[in-house]
């Protein structure tokens, strides 16, 4: 069953089991922790409402791994644009032109109201551009860039996000616990979800966790995850999305 954030309070009155808690999908945690994300304001509503209604929220290892990768994909281009702004006059022609073009792409994305992400292949191109091979006199250009422009953001971003957004972690002990799970999440169930829906394996693992847990609500900003839940037999489960 689908619920909306504006109706969550009424839904909790009708279905008190919603107070048991919810699983937070990666994109929601990312949206709440990255200011330029499309769903940043929606995530603000979500976490404020959960807090006001005293509904505990949970996440797990799969979400944490995806969370770091999403941050990497936005913070590296953001850092590259700042690097260009700071040092543009001293950069040689090729690096200057590539970063100038990157800045234009970032501006276009911002004008369209979406976060600017690079994929892994693109990030590797910038590694090569700035030089990733070690230098005899010290670290590579890419390493020096990361240390100055990327590491300050990524270090502690997970710890700060789960603390400020008040999200709890479902580790091995909790997954083994009858408090949260009827059955242990399994590879076979994850593969069934994957096979029936064609969604990514990381999303299928989160849905597997949700399906086997006693938590009745999943909050996601991913339309394919929402549709997979609504198309499948997630009996007694609720989905909340933008």
């Amino acid at each position: 069953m689908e619920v909306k954030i504006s109706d969550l309070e009424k839904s909790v009155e009708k279905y008190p089991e919603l107070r048991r808690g919810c699983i937070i999908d990666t994109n929601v945690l990312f949206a709440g922790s990255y200011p330029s994300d499309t769903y940043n304001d929606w995530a603000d509503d979500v976490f404020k409402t959960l807090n006001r209604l005293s509904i505990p929220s949970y996440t797990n290892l799969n979400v944490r791994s995806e969370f770091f990768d999403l941050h990497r994909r936005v913070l590296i281009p953001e850092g590259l644009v700042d690097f260009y702004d700071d040092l543009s006059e001293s950069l040689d022609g090729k690096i200057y032109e590539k970063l100038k073009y990157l800045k234009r792409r970032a501006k276009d994305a911002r004008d369209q109201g979406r976060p600017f992400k690079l994929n892994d292949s693109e990030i590797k191109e910038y590694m090569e551009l700035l030089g990733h091979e070690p230098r005899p006199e010290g670290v590579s250009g890419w390493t020096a860039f990361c240390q100055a422009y990327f590491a300050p953001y990524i270090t502690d971003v997970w710890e700060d996000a789960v603390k400020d957004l008040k999200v709890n972690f479902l580790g091995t002990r909790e997954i083994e616990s009858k408090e949260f799970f009827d059955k242990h999440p399994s590879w076979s169930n994850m593969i069934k979800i994957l096979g029936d829906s064609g969604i990514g394996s990381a999303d299928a693992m989160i849905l597997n966790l949700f399906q086997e847990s006693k938590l009745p609500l999943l909050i996601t900003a991913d339309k394919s995850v929402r549709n997979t839940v609504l198309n499948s037999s997630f009996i007694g489960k609720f989905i909340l999305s933008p």
Partner: protein
Amino acid sequence: MSKQEEKSGVQKMRERHERIKKSIKPSKELVEIFSKKEKPKTKNENAKNKVARPFTPEAGA
């Protein structure tokens, strides 16, 4: 209730991002690696060019 307690978690994360963005500057090593022609511009000289999201509800709508 203090002002800090009134801030939402998302607002705290926005402020974290902005605080880090303002504190970042190129290291001496980075400047040396990429200094090919002339002395690079300072952070302040380029601050106006930076991409930063304003903290207004309208900006994220």
